[in-house]
């Protein structure tokens, strides 16, 4: 709302120019610090069927990019792409009650399928589609 007298705005401005040691609650994180690097994002991980010594029965593929999500979902969430709307509420409630309410979790927002071609015990050949196997994107939920 429009501020009737500049004083409060002045105050608030003053306040914002000083380091706010006191207002740093336990859940507070400085967003300009190196913490950003632990922001929620996708990490690559490859499951190699060859490394598992399965190339005698799995014809294709040689493996698949499983990937996983890791990192913090901290306030303000606009620093994290693909946060769900609810994650913003979760973050705010976490800020008010950090000991009891967890931050939003960093989880996949886009999953892709893969197909695997393999022999069964009777040397029949099976081509099977597996849904939700590859993480293509992560976000705060």
């Amino acid at each position, binding site marked *: 709302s429009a501020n009737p007298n500049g004083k409060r705005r002045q105050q608030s401005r003053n306040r914002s120019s000083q380091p706010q040691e006191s207002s740093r609650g336990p859940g507070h994180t400085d967003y300009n610090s190196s913490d950003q690097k632990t922001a929620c994002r996708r*990490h*690559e*991980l*490859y*499951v*190699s069927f060859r*490394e*598992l010594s*399965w190339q*005698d*029965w799995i*014809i*294709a*593929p*040689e493996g698949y990019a499983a*990937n996983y999500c*890791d990192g913090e979902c901290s306030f303000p969430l606009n620093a994290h792409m693909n946060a769900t709307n609810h994650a913003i509420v979760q973050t705010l409630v976490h800020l008010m009650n950090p000991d009891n309410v967890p931050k939003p979790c960093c989880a996949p927002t886009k999953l892709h399928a*893969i*197909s*695997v*071609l*393999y*022999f*069964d*015990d*009777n*040397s*029949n*050949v*099976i*081509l*099977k*589609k*597996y849904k939700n*196997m590859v993480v293509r994107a992560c976000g705060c939920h």
Partner: protein
Amino acid sequence: GSNYLFDGNNEVHPSFVHRRLRTHEKREMQKEILSILGLPHRPRPHLSHGKYNSAPLFMMDLYNTISNEEKNEVDGILDQYKSMFTTQGPPLATFQDSAFLNDADMVMSFVNLVEYDRELSPERHHHKEFKFNLSQIPEGEAVTAAEFRIYKECVSRSFRNETFLLSVYQVVGGRPGRDADLFLLESRRLWAAEEGWLEFDITATSNVWVMSPDHNLGLQISVETLSGQSISSKDAGLVGRDGAIERQPFMVAFFKVGEVHVRSPR
């Protein structure tokens, strides 16, 4: 030897193991990945020759059709398979197969378990039998389409300009020493000179075999000239068990999962 788990940017994630996995850890890892693949144990196929026969090649074509993003990787394997054979056979999977594929969750090819080439006395007709074991199908899978595939080579010698009548039957009964009771599935005219894969729709038959395995008595084919003379399928150019391994007959079935396969919580 990279049994380590690396983060994609090659920085080793602090919580990951920094050493070669021990045997039991590797076995645990295998168990976990097998559970993701929905397999109770790792299959142990006997692949003396089976690895390079027509069914894996056909299935590789289907795989190639499905997973374009992995296409370059599979081409490598596909070329390796195809380099095994002198003849670069015609494309195996047809447009119809690709259509079946879109609607399927799983495709399975079955090797021919038995094949009797009954060279009977001339007045009784020749026939060839095929048998497929459909009992290994995972629970809850329903057959949405099934094909019997047999390769026809060009017959240049004795029957040059002949036209044949190929008939495919489902064996529905029979007693030893007597002709089997047959149910005609399809009859098709073939030119002696034509070459390539013949596909016969056996969806209904496969469903019967899946629902009641005791009725799985296999298929039978027989060939006649238009003048009614019974000839052996070999003389008609049909490739059997003793033909080139990449042209041997097989069956393929497309499945749709009945209920979503949810892994039991562990």
